[in-house]
């Protein structure tokens, strides 16, 4: 009896150990999956020497959200923070607008390769950046609300018009902690700055 009891106890312990191992493995793998997913959304052209980029023209972003003016706001933040890095010179937005007008771009938010080449030549810019704001504003889950932003940005070489860098970032939103404990999340300005910081970090990595 004692032996059977001992075997039963060993079986219970081994089952618990297996469950514990599976749980630990899930914990270890979960962040790995997340980082893998984030890694997939950045593209660097391996043949491009990014240190040669001296001037950048940032075109108006497209707005796929319901928030009016979100694209202007995000573009302004992106331009200023890119310039604040001191790595490149960002052309003033008025000069970019003049370049768009002179280059007769029919749709500056989604330019063709020819448009990019023509615009870069007009503005004497090394690269041209376009972008899209996918989400901007407040999201709600049950009684919890938080601000969220999702944007993607592409960098095109001025001479050829081909994409040399592309990145996407999503910041803010409601996570498990906010669902459990509530809280309003970060202000929209901070969330926007976080997302742009994330993109710039990946660009200069």
């Amino acid at each position, binding site marked *: 009896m004692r032996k059977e009891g001992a075997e039963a106890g060993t079986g219970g312990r081994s089952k618990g150990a297996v469950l514990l191992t599976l749980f630990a493995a899930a914990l270890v793998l979960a962040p790995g999956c997340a980082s893998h997913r984030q890694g997939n959304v950045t593209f660097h052209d391996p043949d491009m020497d990014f240190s040669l980029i*001296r*001037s950048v023209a940032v075109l108006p972003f497209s707005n796929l959200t319901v928030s009016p*003016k979100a694209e*202007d706001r995000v573009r302004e933040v992106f331009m*200023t923070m890119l*310039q604040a890095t001191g790595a490149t010179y960002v052309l003033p937005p*008025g*000069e970019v607008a003049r370049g768009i007008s002179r280059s007769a771009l029919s749709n500056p938010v989604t330019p063709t390769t020819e448009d990019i080449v023509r615009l870069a030549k007009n503005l*004497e810019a090394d690269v041209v950046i376009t972008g899209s704001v996918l989400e901007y504003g407040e999201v709600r889950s049950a009684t919890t609300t938080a601000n969220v932003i999702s944007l993607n940005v592409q960098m095109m070489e001025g001479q050829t018009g081909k994409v040399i860098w592309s990145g996407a970032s999503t910041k803010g939103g409601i996570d498990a902690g906010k669902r459990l404990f509530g809280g309003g999340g970060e202000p929209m300005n901070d969330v926007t*700055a976080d997302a742009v910081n994330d993109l710039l970090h990946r660009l200069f990595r």
Partner: protein
Amino acid sequence: MIPVLAAALAVAVSAAPPGPIAVLPTGNLSGAEAPLDAIQAALRVALQDRGFDLLPEEVLADFMSRQRLRDVSGLAAGMGEALQAETGATAVLVSSVDLFQQDQPPRFALTARLVATGREPRIVWMDMAAATGDEKPGFLGLGRISDVGVLEGRVVTTLGDSLQAALAPGAPDASSDSVARRFRPRSLYRAPADAPLRAPDALPEPEAAAVPETPAAETAGETAAAPPAPRRVAVLPFANDSAMKNAGDLVTLEMVRQVRLVPGVEAIEPGVVRDALLRAHLIQEEGLSLPQADLVRLLLEADLVLFGDVSVYVEAWAGDPEPEVDFSARILSTRTRQTVCAVLSHARGDDGAWFFGLRRVPTARTLAARLAHGFVTGCLDPRQEARP
């Protein structure tokens, strides 16, 4: 007591511009109905009490009618010359109500500047004052003010004293104080003194290269025998993307005031800027383009052009949340045709506030002033290091 007062007035009069001051009708940028006539009258009384010689209202009204002068937000070059020639006024007091709220708690803010008339109007003095009824509630709320008229009186007195002090002989030059961390720009780019990032064709022409451009270049050039001429800064009207009416004008006005405080920098009178933009049919489309910057340099002889965009301007009306201001701004050098400074600034009234609302900024107007101070100091003041 009376001899002391008389002596003080005599000092003020001797230091005032030699000639009468024309007090223009007070403008309204508050977005609410305000008793403008009463405020203008209070300003006149405050100046007269301090011994300033004022141009009679009838004479000014005749001049405005004759010249069809309707814009009272500034003084254009031709208008300043005509005013001096026809009425003898040597200066003009331009004022605007920036905030007017009668509801509890009452709020009031006023900006005023003294502009010397003549061929080229020049800002002699500029200041802003704001007050709210719940600034100092004190024990059991006994310090609360419920009448906006009391705030008006306080603000007008503050501005009158400021003008008197600025024009007194031996008055120190206007200077800007340090910037609290919470009002510094969230993101700041300041051009380095050397090695421009643009292509060589955008470099300055040789004859203009001797003029110091960036603050760092100024501090480096200490061996120059003669002090450099002040850099002229044209502040262009800010675009307004906020829900608050006149937010762009309010921030523009504050930028002019802050630029004046920086040593070695001269802010061009906004009336002159406005007149030049109208005559040149210059309309900013998403900011200033380089040919437009060339035009501004040609028309205004401006070394730097400051422009930007106000995206959030929330005044704390009764029952509303905290005041909030958010703007982006750029400074473009007309000589090198490059951006020399770019910032993002944002703050809420309760940023960095302590218990019981200590250090809280009660109005968006004051918040805009603090942020503009942080921006201008970070970009133009050679005494301040850029703090990204």
